[in-house]
């Protein structure tokens, strides 16, 4: 296994006290595999991704384990983590305009990790940067390498970010909403690019998104998060064909579909997600869930295995099966 996350919890200090943002999340990923983490705002998906990168906000505390290539990332110090970051594991952020440094040329920013981690000379690193820009499909890479972020379009900036992430041939790439700020036609191209590059060099990919459809089309495996908890996980085919958790089912039915009858009532999920400050002791979906019983609010539901590695955390699975 390339990556094994076991019972990962993240606590974050806020003005209202310490809040648990991620609650006992477990998942694993092997070389070349793709995993999608899907969730709404406040689900803890981004914090999970940041924990893997060792980029949690100041004051955050963690428990559990993140085994990456056999080492527990939660036990590494900042210097060790820095050696790993950008080299063995790299991240693609949502908004390339804020993730790129506006004062440095694109080429310089792509060359930096190569100089740092690979010990390349300036000239060699710059030549490699141009080659990387070509690989991510930017036309005229020599000129683009000299350009500054503001001179590129949104899609081009995201390609440059991908080039930067690829530089040291990481074993794992974490992409947090990499296409949310982009138009749909550009989004499709960027997702194709990430998929192709991952397949070429046997990189594992974690794609974080609020959009289940984006995950469905790009990841073999999916993890559905809500209220800091991993509600359901498994092979994407299995989860889409036989969603077991009431939340996953609700999420699948809430979207309008092209081709559906106009004005058809959507299966809205009543209420709103619990805020991190008011996180219940039990299942975070209790109350919004049509199958809620008193026991749902009492304790964190244990994982229920549903064949293969299809897992759902719900004490009402049997009732959910009958309701379907």
């Amino acid at each position: 296994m390339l990556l094994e996350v076991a019972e990962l919890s993240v606590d974050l200090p806020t003005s209202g006290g310490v809040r648990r943002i991620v609650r006992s999340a477990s998942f694993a990923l092997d070389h070349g595999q793709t995993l999608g983490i899907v969730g709404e705002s406040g689900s803890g998906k981004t914090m999970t991704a940041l924990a893997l990168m060792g980029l949690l906000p100041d004051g955050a505390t963690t428990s559990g384990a993140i085994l990456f290539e056999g080492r527990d990332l939660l036990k590494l110090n900042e210097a060790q983590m820095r050696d790993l970051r950008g080299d063995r594991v790299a991240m693609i952020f949502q908004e390339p305009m804020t993730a790129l440094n506006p004062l440095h040329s694109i080429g310089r920013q792509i060359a930096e990790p190569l100089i740092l981690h690979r010990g390349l000379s300036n000239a060699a690193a710059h030549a490699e940067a141009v080659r990387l820009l070509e690989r991510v499909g930017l036309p005229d890479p020599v000129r683009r390498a000299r350009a500054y972020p503001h001179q590129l379009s949104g899609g081009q900036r995201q390609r440059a970010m991908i080039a930067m992430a690829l530089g040291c041939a990481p074993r794992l790439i974490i992409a947090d909403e990499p296409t949310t700020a982009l138009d749909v036609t550009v989004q499709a191209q960027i997702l194709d690019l990430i998929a192709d590059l991952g397949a070429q060099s046997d990189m594992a990919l974690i794609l974080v998104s609020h959009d289940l459809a984006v995950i469905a089309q790009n990841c073999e495996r999916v993890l559905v998060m809500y209220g800091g908890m991993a509600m359901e996980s498994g092979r994407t085919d299995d989860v889409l064909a036989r969603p077991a958790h009431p939340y996953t089912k609700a999420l699948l039915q809430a979207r309008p579909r092209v081709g559906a009858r106009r004005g058809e009532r959507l299966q809205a999920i009543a209420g709103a997600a619990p805020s991190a400050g008011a996180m219940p002791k039990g299942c975070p979906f209790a109350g919004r869930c049509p199958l809620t019983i008193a026991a749902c609010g009492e304790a964190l539901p244990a994982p229920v295995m549903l064949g293969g590695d299809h897992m759902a955390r719900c004490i009402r699975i049997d009732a959910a099966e009958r309701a379907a």
Partner: protein
Amino acid sequence: MSEQQGGAPLLEIADLVKTYRLPRERLFGPRPQLRAVDGVSFRVTAGRSFGIVGESGSGKSTLARAAIALEWPTSGQARLMGSAMNLAPRAALRKMRAHMQMIFQDPYGSLDPRQTVARIVGEPLACLDGISRADGAARIAEALQAVGLSATDARKYPHEFSGGQRQRVAIARALITRPRLVVADEPVSALDVSIQAQVLNLMTDLQQQFGITYLLISHDLAVVEHICDEIAVMYRGRFVETGPSEILLASPAHPYTRALIDAAPKLQTARRRAPAPASDSPGPKTGCAYASRCAFAQSKCREEAPALRPLVDGRHVACHFPL
């Protein structure tokens, strides 16, 4: 687009052009112009909601704002129920505003954090004459209830609500003058999926309950199809295809419409590959603006701009070689 049976259409946009002057590129150089909306005409008939789909920079938001006189067109006209808004005197325009309201994308940015919900929701009443304080309060309570909030929420401030509830407040504000036309610019794209469905259901209910017609702006085809009877696809300031929603989405005639439909993520695991990367060039001066991205472009496309012309099934398409 369907013709109105008797009387003027609810909204009629005639050859509307909106240009913006950009900053100078050189000192003493001329200020370049951007044609955000480049000669668009359409009609919105009462009871048939109209959707405009396009990517960022297509001019769809500018068009929506010009349609309800939040922007003055550079040329062309926007007529509400037969009267031209840019020719109307101030007082008359103010009265017309009661018939058209707007819902904005970001429910965090569009509500003043220092005003109570009562003041926010009641503000458009200023364009109605002779509404007493008591009438106003009753109208506010009624609008809040219509969107699923309670009348007691009127005393609260925006920060006390979640994103979905804030969008309900924004919708209540749009409803309070009992408008015929509501322009909604990406009303659900800032909301989580589970909340989107609530707001879309609400918008559908209000359509039936109050006879509201929407002019909906969105990049999301499924959202537009859910609400709208007619769709226009906009690309670089122009309509490239218009027509009844189901026909347009089931068998698009313009290659750009096809590309938008194919690129939209779907809940299935196999995916059609995206077409070749789009060129980011500003587009040729002559010919079809989409030609540089189009897989079917021929030499004629680069020489002659296609006009929007009718097809047999009620659609209009601006393409020399429709699919």
